[in-house]
């Protein structure tokens, strides 16, 4: 039972353009949403988060949007840089734990 879905396994974007990564979830009771970034041979690192009482949170080049009616979460990276190439996981807080999506591989071409 996949509670968090990232339907795009990979995304390729030109340097300087916008990257949009998407995530869908099933349970309207989830109250906190996070994005993690993972480089090869490293553990995931926290990127940005948003509470269910908000619909947007911005941190530099990264913005997360939350559409509660659609149960949809997206991460926008503007402008994209080659160093952003990584696997991006969305995660939701469920009780005392995090549930992760399968991840999207982002490749930023220079």
């Amino acid at each position, binding site marked *: 039972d996949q509670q*968090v879905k*990232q339907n795009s*396994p990979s995304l390729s974007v030109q340097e300087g353009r916008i990257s949009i990564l998407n995530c869908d979830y099933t349970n309207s009771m989830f109250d*906190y949403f*996070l994005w*993690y970034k993972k480089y090869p*041979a*490293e*553990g*995931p*690192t*926290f990127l940005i*988060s948003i509470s269910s009482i908000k619909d947007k949170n911005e941190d530099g080049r990264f913005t997360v949007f939350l559409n509660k009616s659609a149960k949809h979460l997206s991460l926008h990276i503007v402008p994209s840089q080659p160093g952003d190439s990584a696997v991006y*996981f969305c*995660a939701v*807080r469920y*009780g*005392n*734990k*995090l*549930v*992760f*999506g*399968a*991840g999207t591989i982002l490749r930023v071409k220079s």
Partner: protein
Amino acid sequence: EAGVAQSPRYKIIEKRQSVAFWCNPISGHATLYWYQQILGQGPKLLIQFQNNGVVDDSQLPKDRFSAERLKGVDSTLKIQPAKLEDSAVYLCASSSSVQGPTYEQFFGPGTRLTVL
């Protein structure tokens, strides 16, 4: 501040053998997590400790997996006996509080296990 330490980084064993992984969380972090990440999937929580007590082990295959966190600091995860489907990266993470403002977890580099 030192990050989460894990060892070994890589391990190759044959099925039915046993293996153990070690994790040292960030100093002062009360909550420790073990995740299993199978290729092409996101991390899946196996067990969560608060200090040296288990908070959640609902997804831990208890017939073969065990974990302990003696003294509420470092932790070991053991698999005995290993199966082919246990091939995965085992990630350890820690956080200062279960109810922190951002609920941020800090991950170690992981141990890549290959079962032949």
